[in-house]
């Protein structure tokens, strides 16, 4: 089999990214939408680390660490909002989150 190049990693990351986008666009369960966002962030991280390997410096790895920090903050706040919403409306469907609509 051929040697694994940067392009191979980019293709895997593109596939993971698109899977995450499909999850965000089509699922109704908010928890699964948040998990799909994690999938998207992971695809970006994989790209950054592959480029870090390609150029032989560590900046990509540092960026991916900051993205992990960001993902943790996003998950904490997003799940907090979800719990507050569930307490008020007893549902976790995206379609029924329409409090600001008029």
């Amino acid at each position, binding site marked *: *089999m051929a*040697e*694994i190049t*940067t*392009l191979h990693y*980019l*293709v*895997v990351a*593109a*596939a*993971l*990214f*698109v*899977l995450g*986008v*499909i*999850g965000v*666009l*089509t*699922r*109704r*369960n908010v*928890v*699964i939408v*948040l*998990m799909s966002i*994690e*999938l998207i962030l*992971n695809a970006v*991280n*994989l790209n950054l*680390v592959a480029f*870090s*390997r*390609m150029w*032989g*410096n*560590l900046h990509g*790895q*540092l960026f991916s*660490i*900051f993205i*992990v920090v960001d*993902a*943790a*903050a996003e*998950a*904490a*706040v997003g*799940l*907090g*909002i*979800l*719990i*507050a919403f*569930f307490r008020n409306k007893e*549902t*976790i*469907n*995206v379609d029924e989150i329409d409090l600001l609509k008029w």
Partner: protein
Amino acid sequence: MNPAMNAGLNAGMAPVGTPWFFYVLAGLAVASGLAVITRRNAVHSALALIVTLLSVACFYLMLYAPFVAGVQIIVYAGGIMVLFLFVIMLVNIERSSKDRQFNRMWPVGLAAACALLALFLGALAKGKALLNDPITGKALWPDPVNKLAESSNTQQVAAMLYGDGGRMGEYTFAFEIASLLLLVAILGAVIMTKKKI
């Protein structure tokens, strides 16, 4: 640096794992990613997401990034996923697992996502055909220059985050800002989940 380590560094792109290993991991990551977005039960989705995260961590090991792989396992698979599982158990999953799982516009979403995938793959294929950047003339995806040492990866990351020998690191300021962001996120999560503010 001893000669044995030098030989290991110069052995090409994937001395940590064979191409076979890469393809197995890629299949595992994509298959479990597919399971994340198709399962009816949210707990199953979360477990599939853990498999994806672990296979991405293995990719990091193959890319000479052991510190990022450790962060991935400890923070993602250990921290964030436990948070997700807790929330899944707090909210009522029985009702939502009997519901319709996909929204009414799902064919549109699927088509848009497929168009995005076609765009990505087209761009990558064009880049592969181009080989050299038309403006700078340099290779678009050059072969790895084999400078990443695996044994001192954590020290180098620490030098860039915290600084080295009394000097501030390149990312020290960003690191402090990140800690501020985490503080704000903690406050936000706590206030959001309080019963009465």
